């Protein structure tokens, strides 16, 4: 990649390098139930990001001492495959992956009825096959779909999206280059029904006004993501619904 040559992230016509407007998301595709052996799974293509999430559980906790007596433990492993980046990534968990695993587990926990399954664990495995900026948001989005697919009782879904600042302008959903060369990044996750924020991180510098603007833009982005999530779930399960209706007619 010729990243070194790039100095400006906004073109003269005000569009971004990939011809998006400031408030435009990348193209997003979601699929439900992609893995046979997992209790629940989902796949997302968010721009150039390609991520699979798998849910196992609720199941017994190993090691035993980690189990909680009043609710289920939510455990997450976020992992980037060695071929997911431009330069080979060493497969051992990096500091960043440990952080994202922790942050994703805490961001999805509020939506799960963990108290229904005391002394068990819900394991989340996230595998990043290709990455291009904004993987934590994409990973969170796909994780909530996988949880729904696993048939685990949920209060809501989680939708995540980032906003940031490039060339002094607030933009939605930054890709890899914008993330690297931009001035600030603000990934957030919300529960769309009651607009509670379950994740908010920030990297770079915003003024107070810029922060407010970026936050509102990111929330708008999350709502768009939520619509895509709902559609993906409906599309998958409407087929199942029709199947069961046929059975009853027979």
């Amino acid at each position, binding site marked *: 990649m010729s990243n070194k040559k790039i100095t400006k992230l906004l073109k003269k016509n005000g569009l971004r390098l990939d011809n998006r407007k400031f408030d435009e998301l990348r193209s997003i595709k979601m699929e439900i139930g992609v893995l046979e052996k997992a209790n629940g799974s989902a796949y997302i293509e968010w721009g150039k990001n390609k991520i699979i999430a798998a849910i196992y559980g609720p199941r017994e906790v190993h090691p035993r001492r980690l189990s909680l007596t009043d609710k289920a433990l939510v455990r997450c492993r976020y992992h980037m495959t060695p071929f997911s980046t431009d330069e080979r990534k060493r497969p051992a968990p990096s500091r960043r992956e440990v952080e994202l695993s922790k942050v994703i587990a805490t961001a999805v926990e509020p939506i799960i*009825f963990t108290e229904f399954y005391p002394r068990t664990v819900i394991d989340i495995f996230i595998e990043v096959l290709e990455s291009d900026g904004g993987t934590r948001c994409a990973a969170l989005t796909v994780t909530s779909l996988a949880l729904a697919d696993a*048939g685990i*009782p949920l*209060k809501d879904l989680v939708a995540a999206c980032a906003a940031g600042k490039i060339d002094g302008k607030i933009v939605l959903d930054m890709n890899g280059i914008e993330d690297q060369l931009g001035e600030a990044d603000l990934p957030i996750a919300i529960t769309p029904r009651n607009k509670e924020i379950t994740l908010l991180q920030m990297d770079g510098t915003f003024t107070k006004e810029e922060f407010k603007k970026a936050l509102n833009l990111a929330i708008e982005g999350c709502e768009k993501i939520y619509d895509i999530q709902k559609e993906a779930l409906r599309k998958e399960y409407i087929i*199942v619904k029709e*199947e069961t209706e046929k059975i009853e007619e027979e």
Partner: protein
Amino acid sequence: MQYLVEKRQLVIPGELLAEGDYKSGKNTYQEENRIYSSLIGLANHIEKNVFVVAIKTGYMPVVGDLVIGKVIDMRLSGWIIDINAPYKAMLFTSDAFGRSFNARKDEMSDFLKVGDLIFAKISAFDRTRDPIVTIRDQGLGKVNRGHVIKITSTKIPRLIGKKGSMVNMVKRETGCQITIGQNGLVLVSGKNVEVEALAILAIRTIEKNAHTLGLTDKISNLLKKEEGD
């Protein structure tokens, strides 16, 4: 005060089902006076009781359920049974022997060994403790012969068919005994391996083609053809 979704409408977690004077039933939850779905399923209501019929969930033990389990460990007090649920079940030695167990005289592994399969009933379970199963009832106990297969739990209604039409047809055509555990395991036992294989083939075909029409006839034809060969 109103019910907001159509009967048997597909709903997703967090979807608003009803507002006002309604009661939160199965697979739903209530916030103030609003009732939301907590699972993917089909929403429905009987008078004021709003509930969701889940499309896909794991097995959660319920007292009285008949399940097929596998012995995975032995302790002094009993056997640990895997019942395809989030919790491991316990079968007490006193229950199995029908009297108090004497470690000096009785050998537990004479009765059940690790790897053995049992057909049992859930006798106690309340989430704070692991479920307890019993084999003290008609038709329960060790599974001595046959094959156990696991099928997707959502396909079990299809396997049973309307008033048991599907499973009864497979039983009749193959002469096999078919026992369906509520935890998603199915036991097939017949006169010989061939008829068992035939019944398993039929069950797998049902699982794979669960959405197609006229499946009972298709399976019936399949079995007749296979028997002829």
